């Protein structure tokens, strides 16, 4: 009986191994046509005054990949909705069929991981979250430099220089700048949203009492922010809000983001190595969370959340945005792309009463965490698919498409291209929030603050290391315990350090 069982089992194991061994067909590289060197010609796409056009070498046949099917996997973010709504332009110009699959980031990470694990290429174009996808699987992505250098293929319009450089570093590279894995695609950044009407009401009395203007501005400190929030709490009834400040402090990624702003504003960071926020590294080295500045940041965050809306502890960014839109809180550090929701009278009671600025300063500076992502190409794809995917990347990240995304009613995400911010209508919308242009592109109401937040002195990138998903979880779990009153700030910092160092082997 046992022998029989053993025989059956071994048969199965062998069968499995055989199955694992075969498969994985090699796609044939089809007809490479001779391309003329040097001269570039505009492609068959809509052109916009003042933006660099999408160009290809002379004689380039835009339809040569007709019939190829591209699977694009993306988080359900505004740009992907806008691209999906306008994909016809690309499909008609190239004959390539594009299937855009949108899902929440967790499911995306799961699907991409499974796909890489199985060695297949179900998805050709991948939304490469810098921390959860790129840092872990950079070797699974095509080096885009080679496609950009290929004389037979279209070029990135405006070149890499037109991307916002700090974003290109975070979204595109991993460990070194030798290889480029992704092109910047979206760029949510945390800045401060506040209610202008509430500030106007308290301004006079507050100034008298505390001696400074309560209206959030680039020079406000976190301590001052605390005082304003506390003041609003006290006068909540007459102001028509419930609490001064709200946060995204659910035991989730959002809690780490919210805390990171304060950690870095206080002059601290997660690791001794401070250069992990840009191109990242395979091993982060030792943690630096028990320095005096870091402990101060933990203490302040704990103090701040005690006077925040109690719902904060169950909100991620969506929950916080809903509460802000419902008029429950007067101030909230929030992703700048929620501006369009706040200005939408159907979803928001506070439309027209919201202004944005960079986050308050700590003893060191104002730190505004960046949460953008690039798109890259699966290295397991066939040569033909890779080239077709390159065409898609060029188009989707081009200034024209980025402008289209900005204007799209289903999207409304902000561009990752310098040149778009120089277009006249965009400039006008940023300058004058009451203009027609601003109404058409409501996201731009937060854009002035966001452009400030992108400057090197204000920008913050979390450490980009392959172990980030685990580190993130340790950080937000321990912080959640601190906020629940189960441990003090110092213990929290020590506990995170201990667990993270054990994880990374430092």
């Amino acid at each position, binding site marked *: 009986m046992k022998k029989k069982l053993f025989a059956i089992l071994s048969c199965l194991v062998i069968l499995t191994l055989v*199955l*694992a061994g075969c*498969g994985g067909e090699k796609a044939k590289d089809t007809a490479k046509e001779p391309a003329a060197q040097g001269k570039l010609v505009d492609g068959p796409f809509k052109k916009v005054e003042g933006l660099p056009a999408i160009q290809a070498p002379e004689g380039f046949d835009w339809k040569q990949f007709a019939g190829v099917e591209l*699977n694009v996997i993306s*988080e*359900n*973010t*505004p740009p992907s909705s806008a691209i999906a709504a306008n994909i016809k332009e690309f499909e008609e110009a190239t004959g390539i069929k594009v*299937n*855009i*699959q*949108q*899902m*929440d*980031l967790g*499911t995306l990470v*799961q*699907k991409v991981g*499974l*796909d890489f*694990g*199985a*060695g*297949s290429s*179900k998805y050709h174009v991948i939304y490469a979250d810098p921390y959860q996808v790129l840092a872990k699987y950079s070797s699974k992505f095509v080096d885009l430099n080679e496609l950009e250098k290929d004389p037979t293929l279209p070029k990135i319009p405006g070149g890499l220089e037109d991307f916002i450089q700090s974003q290109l570093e975070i979204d595109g590279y991993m460990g070194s700048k030798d290889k480029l894995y992704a092109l910047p695609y979206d760029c*949510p950044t945390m800045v401060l949203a506040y209610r202008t009407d509430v500030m106007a009401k308290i301004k006079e009395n507050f100034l008298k009492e505390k001696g400074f203007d309560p209206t959030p501005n680039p020079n406000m400190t976190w301590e001052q922010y605390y005082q304003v929030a506390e003041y609003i709490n006290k006068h909540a009834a007459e102001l028509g809000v419930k609490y001064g400040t709200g946060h995204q402090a659910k035991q989730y990624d959002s809690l780490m983001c919210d805390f990171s702003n304060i950690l870095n504003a206080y002059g601290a960071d997660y690791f001794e190595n401070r250069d992990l926020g840009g191109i990242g590294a395979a091993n982060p080295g030792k943690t630096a969370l028990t320095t005096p500045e870091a402990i101060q940041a933990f203490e302040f965050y704990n103090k701040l959340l005690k006077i925040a809306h109690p719902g904060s502890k169950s909100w991620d*960014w*969506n929950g916080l*945005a*809903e509460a802000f839109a*419902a008029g429950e809180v007067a101030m909230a550090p929030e*992703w700048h*792309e*929620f501006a*369009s*929701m706040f200005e939408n009278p*159907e*979803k928001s009671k506070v439309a027209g009463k919201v202004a944005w600025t960079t986050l308050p300063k700590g003893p060191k500076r104002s730190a505004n965490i960046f949460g953008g992502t690039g798109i890259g190409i699966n290295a397991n794809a066939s040569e033909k698919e890779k080239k077709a995917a390159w065409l898609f990347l060029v188009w989707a990240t081009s200034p024209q498409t980025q402008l289209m995304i900005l204007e799209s009613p289903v999207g409304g995400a902000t561009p990752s291209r310098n040149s778009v911010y120089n277009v006249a209508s965009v400039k006008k919308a940023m300058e004058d929030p009451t203009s027609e242009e601003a109404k058409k592109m409501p996201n731009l109401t937060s854009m002035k603050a966001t452009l400030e937040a992108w400057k090197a002195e204000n920008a913050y990138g979390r450490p980009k290391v392959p172990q980030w998903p685990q580190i993130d979880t340790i950080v937000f779990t321990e912080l959640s315990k601190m906020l629940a009153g189960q441990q003090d700030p110092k213990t929290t910092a020590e506990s995170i350090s201990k667990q993270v160092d054990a994880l990374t082997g430092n």
Partner: protein
Amino acid sequence: MAGTKVSSRKLITTVLIYTALGIAMVWALLPIIWMVLSSLKTEANMFSMPPKFTFKPTFSTYAFMFTEGNFGGFLKNSMIAAFSSTAIALILGTLGGYALARGNYRRGKDIAFWIISTRMTPVAAAIVPLYIIFAKFHLIGTTFGLVFAYTTFNLPFALWMMMTFFAELPPDMEHAAMVDGATKFQAFYRIALPQVTPGLVATGILCLMFAWNDFAFASVFTSHENQTIPVAASLLVSQTGIAWGQAMATGTVIITPMLITGLAVRKYLVRGLSMGAVK
């Protein structure tokens, strides 16, 4: 005297029973009623505090979902996946269940337990190996793959339930039929099967429910084209907010076909389950 005492006591008992049932119904149905009401509200009405109980209903959310939202397609996908996996589970489960119940297998109980234990693997653990198989056979993103995945939890359930139903059926009638010249299969098909129809229906409903409600498998094994409703529901939570109107409408859409099916076979359901396990 005694008679009025008894009847008044009976009256009190009846009142108590219906009061308790009334509370239970409020507990069970209020969320669903609120969900349906909310799906008929505008966004502004939906978030008003205190909550609004009277309002002018609008069907715009449904109109949007079924035109631009492609919910008709998702509904179809859900139905195809749920009904075909249920059909497979029922056919194979009925055949196998009968065999197990009548076959005199030496370790029948152990086999039965092994069958039901295959349904106990945690979903997250089962997904990884299934993904590897599916990737090999190019089943990712296909409806067939999803049906196959659903079979992993529905077949053991159906087998086990049907085995229990057949086991409690006295075999005398089948024996008599076989004495009259019927084959074993004919005895199963003509005599035993009609008697367990209620059990079959009940098992089918529960299989349908398990497949219909599934999110974990569907989110991994479907692509945009053959997405099911629970996956579509999860997509309403996006980076820039939750589309609550659509979420509530989705909830309403998701229970409607099951409510209709449930109503249609309600009598079988209550009767059918009574045959299982109680010997």
